[in-house]
């Protein structure tokens, strides 16, 4: 049995872990609104009140983990200076 076979064979524990993480979040999301989604919308709304930015210059990354989740909002704000 090659090393490749060894790793390929134990895919079931990966399936179990991925499901446990995913379902933990989805079960919470069913009972209350999605916190990270709410934060994303409100953060963007606050920034939009003060500066205008192009919606396609906003990058949002979300990573849901077991104990910690991260929301990364990267907004390119124009400086008001002409482009060089």
């Amino acid at each position, binding site marked *: 049995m090659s090393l490749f076979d060894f790793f390929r*064979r134990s895919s*079931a524990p990966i*399936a*179990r872990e991925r*499901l*446990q993480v*995913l379902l933990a979040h*989805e079960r919470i999301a069913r009972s209350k609104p999605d916190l990270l989604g709410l934060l994303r919308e409100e953060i963007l709304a606050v920034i939009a009140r003060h500066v205008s930015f192009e919606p396609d210059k906003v990058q949002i990354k979300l990573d849901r983990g077991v104990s910690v989740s991260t929301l990364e909002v990267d907004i390119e704000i124009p400086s008001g200076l002409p482009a060089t």
Partner: protein
Amino acid sequence: MSQVLVVTSGKGGVGKTTSTAALGAALAHDGAKVVVIDFDVGLRNLDLVLGAERRVVFDLINVISGVAKLPQALIRDKRLENLFLLPASQTRDKDALSEDGVAKVIEELRTKFDWIICDSPAGIERGATLAMRYADAAIIVTNPEVSSVRDSDRIIGLLDSKTVKAERGERVDKHLLITRYDSSRAARGEMMSIDDVLEILSTPLLGIIPESEEVLRASNVGSPVTLNNALSAPARAYFDAARRLKGEEIPMLVPSKGYRFLNKLFGRKAA
């Protein structure tokens, strides 16, 4: 007392219709009066799996709209005289399936049958929510595979919130039926085990149906697997599951492929 069961899953192709036919036939074989209802409006298939496709005259929507009386639409199985089918309509108009209409049909069936088994369509749209709406108990059909388990979790959430029983503050009894299980692949770590699935879904186990050629063979000829080859591994697993539904305590066997005759005794209590 009649029992209204919904056979549901969220995901398609996991074995809802096969299981509805097999369990319905198993319960009827043991003497109960059973009706199976196809809720998959527009894509009916329970008639085909039961071998009654050429005898469909009226359907569920005809009964709801008053075109036909319920006894006219019920098709008696050719093999078991106490097994009946109420087919789905082939119409594309899903709105024809009204909540009040379904409620009336189920109430009328309750007076005539011991078991009313609703075969849910895949998804979480109208047909699926109406199939579970009036259920006393639910059979959640799951394959040991990530998308099926995820969808089952979603369906369990709906059973706990969108059914009449749930809205009254009662509980719909939930039973997990794991289908297409391959014990040798699970032993090699290629497939989630029964314990994995039970741990994730925390729902009592009704039965384990092994992956088997017999299932396709039975549907090819239009016969529930429990009638087509009653001694085959999937048929025996369905018969055991049917008896557990009736409240009998049957040891949970993990079925293995036909040529490996050693069944591993699991000792887990049934649902």
